[in-house]
């Protein structure tokens, strides 16, 4: 292969790669600008007349059964927090208690449900 062809391939290759990725840079900038603008164009919600802040509702502390460790409580709370984050609903933990082990374990049931759920 003549050296002139080799140099030409190298040069062309680099130019095309740079052009392609520079195009993508431009696209990402334009996209973020459009999204920023559309966000700022959204009319700010009309200010409501400042009402006195509602008094904080005193929440009864959750009833935790004896023998459940802090780590388990933290894991259960985190799982519920993750769930409430995905469906925008606020959940409160009222009580945590152990259930008697009957039949299939709860994790196995969850796995079974997931695998047999229809599309």
């Amino acid at each position, binding site marked *: 292969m003549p050296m002139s062809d080799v140099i030409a*391939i190298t040069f062309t*290759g*680099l130019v095309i*790669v740079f*052009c392609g990725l520079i195009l*993508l840079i431009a696209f990402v900038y334009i996209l973020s600008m459009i*999204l920023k603008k559309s966000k700022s164009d959204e009319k700010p919600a009309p200010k409501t007349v400042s009402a006195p802040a509602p008094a904080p509702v005193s929440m009864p502390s959750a009833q935790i059964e004896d023998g459940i460790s802090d780590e388990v409580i933290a894991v259960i709370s985190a799982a519920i927090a993750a769930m409430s984050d995905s469906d925008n609903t606020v959940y409160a933990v009222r009580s945590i208690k152990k259930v008697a082990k009957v039949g299939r374990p709860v994790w196995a049931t969850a796995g079974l449900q997931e695998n047999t759920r229809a599309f």
Partner: protein
Amino acid sequence: MFETFIETISNLASTSGFSAFTWREGLMLLIAFVFLYLAIKKQYEPLLLLPISFGILLANLPLANLTSYSGPADGEVGGLLYYLYQGVHYGIYPPLIFLGIGCMTDFGPLIANPKSFLLGAAAQGGIFFTFIFAALLGFAPQECASIAIIGGADGPTTIYVTSRMLSHPDIYGQNGSFSIDLGTVAVAAYSYMALVPIIQPPIMKLLTTKKERSVVMEQLRPVSKTEKVIFPIAVTVVVSLLVPSAAALVGMLMLGNLIKESGVCERLCKTAQNELMNIITIFLGISVGATTTADKIVSLSTLKIILLGLLAFSFGTACGVLIGKVMYLFSGGKVNPLIGSAGVSAVPMAARVSQKVGAETNPTNFLLMHAMGPNVAGVIGSAVAAGVLLSIIPH
């Protein structure tokens, strides 16, 4: 009866593998054992090196008819690995691997700092400069492209380009004058990817000053879900229009990413990044390994591939760091040039190397997320470079 017994035994002996065993097969088996050792004991890219080395082992067992080129002949069906190899030959496996990679990749750092694309593009310099050196060493254009793509530091891309460029003469009737094979190129690519933490740091330190290495970069902005969903669609359209040969790789990568970012196909996402990718990895590894034969491995070309592969990785790293230095200058010292080396792909190893070298200079500096931008840009960049090579060089 005794005569029949002796005759049967001698027939069995003459048709056994031992009768056809030569020093070449012995050497190939030894190479397979060494790679198996490296995969199992040293854990060098074990997910691929193990099936590749076992593929080498199977392909070089005499009379077993298990090379990737053992196609159907004389009314007999082909060997098992011949049929598995069709996924490599027709370019099916690498894009499917890209689908899984897309499901595991977060393009957020790249969207937050799109300038990272420049570093991803610069690191592809390793591919194109190695192309020149391969041509100087007398390789054919298709061989030059196959060796140069090692610099993309991307296994599936390397296999995709090389399998396209080198079609075996025995079964596909093409020119048959190639002195290298797919297996050697793939093993070289994966070996160097495993060696990224050893190859890159000296080059990074050589090309940067202590002041540059200690730059602490600003925190990246949060990226919205809308941006993350639009990004894969846009990249597919832009890249495929510009370089149609890259559409299969980039398209599948971005499909995987869209499946992930859309958040509505959780089951598909789990399958693509786990079961599907694992199955394809096994098929890909074993059939690529089974392309190696003694006459191609035991040659001067193998040494040249090893040398050029190292050169490709080094050039890619150097180009990324040098463009990083340019960005350092133009940004008034806000960009740490070390993130440029991550542009060679090898996700996430190269980004970890940037983080490690940066932390050596300033232990409180966290470059990992900044380096992930060029790192994933490098994946797109190497796919584009692969498309360019496939478009320019006849195959």
